[in-house]
């Protein structure tokens, strides 16, 4: 009787402490996230006029959505392109970061320097610097020169070489696209490599020792130990990569949404675009999680 009372009291105090500690987030989430989030959805059904004293809303029904989908010339095309690019990038980034993590986990001279290098893009991913890079005369001309004259991987030569190998057209196109986007892939893999690296180091060595006793080869070890043990992190990285591409200011659709807000299309249409984009990507995220979590292996 008495003990249960004390316990109840303790549980009560614990709950109060928990609520107090999480209060900053609760307030921020309610007022600086949930409220604008709901407002964004409301705005997308209205025409928004901003005056000197606050703003006014005219109900427009699905007008903004119809406008975004059928009137704005670039929206649907950019949306499809951005999504297709993301779907192509995710497996490439995942494969590259997995491969890089396995490589950077081996002992070799200069490993620290290599890690510093791989992670550099995360530090230098400054929004405004990247934005200026797109309009950079010098880098552009240097890049086009490297590609046509003296680049060590000339896309054209590679294409001709692959044609000679008589690869199926689909595969050939995929390889060409992968090579073409190598810089983007490499630059957006930093965090994913770190996550995989940490995962590799958390695999208990006893598993590999046991496999050695049983006579397992490196190849078998990879498929039977490394890959299953890392599979939860593959899910984490898929989610991270999709979200990262979603919020990337370099993302063409994000730029279009921003441009529309301050251009002729107006706030309402711009918000409708971002709601559509969010729903689309959220659906892809859920599908990806549903598919991948089926073969994720949990050690515990």
């Amino acid at each position, binding site marked *: 009787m008495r003990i249960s009372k004390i316990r109840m009291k303790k549980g009560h105090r*614990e*709950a109060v*402490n*928990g609520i107090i*500690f*999480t209060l*900053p*987030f609760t*307030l*921020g*989430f309610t007022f*600086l*996230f949930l*409220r*604008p*989030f709901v*407002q*964004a959805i409301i705005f997308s059904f209205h025409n928004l006029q901003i005056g000197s*004293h606050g703003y006014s809303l005219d109900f427009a029904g699905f007008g903004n959505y119809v406008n975004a989908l059928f009137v704005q010339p670039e929206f649907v095309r950019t949306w499809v392109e951005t999504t297709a690019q993301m779907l192509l990038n995710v497996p490439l980034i995942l494969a590259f970061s997995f491969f890089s993590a396995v490589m950077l986990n081996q002992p*070799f001279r200069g490993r*620290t320097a290599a*890690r*510093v*290098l791989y992670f*550099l893009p*995360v*530090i*230098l991913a*400054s*929004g*405004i*610097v990247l*934005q*200026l*890079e797109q*309009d950079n*005369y*010098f*880098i552009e001309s*240097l890049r086009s020169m490297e590609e046509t004259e003296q680049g060590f991987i000339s896309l054209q030569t590679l294409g001709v070489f692959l044609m000679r190998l008589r690869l199926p057209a689909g595969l050939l196109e995929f390889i060409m696209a992968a090579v073409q986007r*190598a*810089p983007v892939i*490499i630059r957006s893999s930093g965090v994913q490599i*770190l996550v995989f*690296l*940490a995962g590799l180091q*958390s695999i208990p060595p006893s598993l590999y020792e046991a496999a050695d006793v049983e006579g397992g080869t490196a190849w078998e070890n990879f498929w039977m130990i490394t890959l299953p043990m890392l599979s939860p*992190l593959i899910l984490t990285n898929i989610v991270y990569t999709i*979200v990262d591409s979603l*919020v990337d*200011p370099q993302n063409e659709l*994000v730029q279009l949404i*921003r441009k529309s*807000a301050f251009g002729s299309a107006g*706030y309402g249409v*711009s918000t409708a675009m*971002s*709601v559509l*984009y*969010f729903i689309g990507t959220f659906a892809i995220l859920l599908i990806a999680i549903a598919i991948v979590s089926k073969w994720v292996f949990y050690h515990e």
Partner: protein
Amino acid sequence: MSETSARAAFSRVHRLLTARNLIAAGFALGRLGVLIGVAYTILFPLLAKVSSSFMAEVDIFDKTVNWIPKHFTLNNYRNAIKYMNYPQAFLNSLGLTLGLSLLQLASCSVVGYGLARFFFRGREILFGAVIFTLVVPPQMIMIPLYLNFRYFDFFGLAKSLELNLLGTYWPLVLMGTTAMGVKNGLFVYIMRQYFRGMPRDLEEAAYIDGAGAFRAFFSVMLPGAMPALIVVFLFAFVWQWNDYFFVNIFAGSRELLPNALAELAGRYSRDLSIAGSEYVPRAHRSLLNNAGSLLLIAPLVILYIALQRYFIESVERTGLVG
């Protein structure tokens, strides 16, 4: 050379040429190739910026100039520093970034601890909300948030009061204090994972000594969570320093480095046109922008090289994975 030593040398070479060593050498070579390719891709834009920031405009159109400028000049830096108002913008940015990242560190660690250690109704929902903030692009809530700060009435609580908070640091400070800053959801997640991994004995000892939850948190848990705190602080600093999106929307009129860099070319050509000169060509603008970009990222590069250990071992240190 005597016969025996020659034979010894021969047998050593022979031993080295086993299949296993050959495979290892092949791997090392392949690794070297990949590393060179990756280094080239990552360093290319950086090196191109460095080399062109020292060039005069004629060098860009000179086909014989690739990487080494023929007309070496410091003019781009001189102009960038002048038109970005660099010393002032640097100090402002440094102060704002330091302050905001410390605020974010404080709010994210407190919230992370609350989610990790105390059980209360709705905790799982709150944690779901943390993840949700990461998944929603900031662009989606940008316009309502902008309007909320433009006509700030304490979120509808004081309708008669309408303050314009744009152009002040208040929006950024409010967001930092409530764990809503740049990628703060990730920091809450990191702190929660770290606190969950810490042994409970520490706090229980503090409780037995009569300390309350807050004393226990500040005197026992925070010092124990130093590795995670360092990592969160560094990432908060770097991402806040790089942030242009929020800084431009809420404090676009302030003299901060990202704003100054965005306006650099415009300010420069405006001054030239006042002086009676014609339009500044694109090539010239990109030289100026390159010098400006390097001035913006230079502090980060120095920070990164000095503290690379913390960045790279970060995920292992914080136990983000386990």
